[in-house]
């Protein structure tokens, strides 16, 4: 009924309440508000006060966390004074731009970015470069004009070849094999499968291996499980299965481990150590492969340091040392390859946590 007229009391009350809210916000900022960044020192020799910032596609992604973990450790080892990780909560095209802007203003020496959109980040990265920052793209490339180097995980062909090599070893070089892939139109998987098929045909070592089926589990756990089951019924002489997808290999391993085929039908492919650990230990799977995401971060950090120190410029043929991983060369298009996939077995699987 009564609309309270404006009295002093009301205004003071409103002002107090709103100021309290503001104070809350301010104290939240104060928590991380001051991170001293290195001042611009002389270029050329190794800088000791250089700063590096990683901008992933989005935060709180388990795979990204492993990459960034490797990157931050290596950044400290490479000689960066501070290493930061900032990034958006959702992987949208333009969400990374404000982070790049803030880093530009903070005078960060090296920005390591996995671009959500190759072009949307470009003008912001250009501004950062004008301000003196070195740009390293990793995982997902930007437009090549906007970065100094791109660190690529693996060569597609290497991924395919390691899987054919593993299956051949596990089935003794002869017998029927099948592939359980993700979706029928998955770009990565199809590229690998194409290389595998070519290798099986052309390499004399694999002449006794016969690829009898390709099935698709759609990267769905239940569907992959059923497809694995179907493969065993349709091909009683099957000696081995390659599953070049982390979902497929885990589902197939789960099926095999509880079936009569455990230990008799070989399984390999691309898997996550944490998901595959129990199957490796119980003998369902002897060896499988995947790149080590941490190494991606490591190579990116060392490349960034070499760029900041001026020992490389990003030109094709430039070489730099990536810590324990050894020397890396910049290839055509400013691309650096991290290396061949890592093979996991019961001896080394406990060393990895991802």
């Amino acid at each position, binding site marked *: 009924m009564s609309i*309270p*007229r404006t009295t002093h009391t009301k205004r003071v009350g409103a002002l107090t309440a709103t100021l309290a809210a503001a104070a809350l916000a301010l104290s939240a900022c104060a928590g991380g508000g001051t991170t001293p960044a290195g001042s611009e020192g002389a270029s050329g020799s190794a800088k000791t006060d250089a700063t590096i*910032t990683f901008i992933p596609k989005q935060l709180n992604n388990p795979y990204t966390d492993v990459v960034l973990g490797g990157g931050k450790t290596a950044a400290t080892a490479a000689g960066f004074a501070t290493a930061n990780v900032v*990034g958006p909560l959702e992987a949208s095209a333009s969400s990374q731009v404000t982070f790049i802007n803030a880093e530009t203003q903070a*005078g960060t020496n090296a920005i390591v970015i996995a671009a959500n959109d190759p*072009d949307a980040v470009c003008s912001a990265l250009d501004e950062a470069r004008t301000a003196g920052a070195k740009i390293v793209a990793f995982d997902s490339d930007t437009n090549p004009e906007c970065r100094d180097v791109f660190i690529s995980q693996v060569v597609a062909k290497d991924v395919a070849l390691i899987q054919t090599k593993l299956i051949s070893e596990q089935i003794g070089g002869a017998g029927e094999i099948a592939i359980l892939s993700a979706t029928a139109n998955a770009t990565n998987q199809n590229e690998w499968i194409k290389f595998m098929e070519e290798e099986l045909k052309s390499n004399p070592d694999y002449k006794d291996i016969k690829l009898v089926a390709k099935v698709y589990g759609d990267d769905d756990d239940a569907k992959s499980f059923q497809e694995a089951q179907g493969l065993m019924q349709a091909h009683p002489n099957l000696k081995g299965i390659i599953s070049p997808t982390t979902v497929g290999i885990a589902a197939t391993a789960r099926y095999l481990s509880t079936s009569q085929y455990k230990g008799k039908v070989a399984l390999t492919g691309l898997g996550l150590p944490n998901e595959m650990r129990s199957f490796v230990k119980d003998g369902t799977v002897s060896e499988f492969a995947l790149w080590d995401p941490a190494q991606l971060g490591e190579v990116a950090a060392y490349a960034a340091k070499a760029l900041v120190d001026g020992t490389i410029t990003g030109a094709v043929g430039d070489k730099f040392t990536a810590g324990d991983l050894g020397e890396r060369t910049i290839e055509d298009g400013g691309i650096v390859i991290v290396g061949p996939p890592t093979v996991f077995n019961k001896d080394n699987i406990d060393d990895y946590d991802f």
Partner: protein
Amino acid sequence: MSEHATVAVDTTAPLADVVPVRGPRWYAGRDATMVYILLAFLAYAALSIPRFASPVTTGFLLLDVVPTLLIAMPMTLIIVTGEIDLSVASIAGLSSAVLGVAWASGTGIWVSIFLALGAGLLAGIFNGVLVAYVGLPSLAVTIGTLALFRGLALVVIGDNAVANFPNEITALASAKLGTSGIPLVILPVVFVVLVFGLVLHHTAFGRGLYAMGYSKDAAHFVGINVGNSKFWLYVASGLVSAAAGVFWTLRYTSARSDNASGLELTVIAAVLLGGVSIFGGKGSIPGVLAGVLLIGSLNYALRLGRVSDVVLVTVTGLLLIASVIAPSVSAAVGRWRHSQRLRRHLARDQGAEPG
């Protein structure tokens, strides 16, 4: 026996010992409070966050808030009438997609921009007709068109991104005025803000919007054309959202169907923080301006301080809740104190009479 006489007291009348404030409102109103908070925050950030106080900040910060600021203008007017438009970010996405496809198919850049704005206008008309003339609730209509326009954007451009816009145009989107660091694009934005400010605060149409926010029926009976007013608001919202989409596309040099997704919530948060009542009838453009800038500078300062976005979302959420609660709490406190005084008055008055 019981001699309790009922004393007729006008409980709404001002009490003798309370002096009503009748002076100028500009220094003590809700919008003024927002401006004070904004200034306090800017001062705090400038002092405590390294490098915050520089022309670079002005440039980046203003560029960041342009889309929010633009869309917040029609949104303020719509919320003042007690309605809402949730489809604004989808309209921006649709206009981005149209701009990209038109440019990629060889249309001139200005014609492409014109087509993109046209798409926004049509989207606004669609919303307007459903809300104003068919009479459907705006919440339901715009939740629907939120999905519909985003879907259309996906139909128009698919999974592709168009990025090869002419350099002169994209440079214009992030060009600065001399060395001040103020982006050139702020000039048209200021114009839009002035237009919406004048319409809301200095025209009969604008005052009609407040009346509609309090009571649509009452507004109708005093001769306000409720349907037409709403229709034009949604048309304006569509057009301005499309302009924001065009700016977004050119600033990030990338036309994609998912551009500006989620922006509607940022805009509504800023508008409510700026003192506009979600129930309609209250709010002002200066307050909203301060709200948008407060969220924008909070965002920027936290990022400059490398505080995680999780904190940012949490802080924005708390601010929003506080801004909604604060007036209710102070109103409740005011009412309580008023009734306390009233009781004391009554006790004093009745003390003279036999009990």
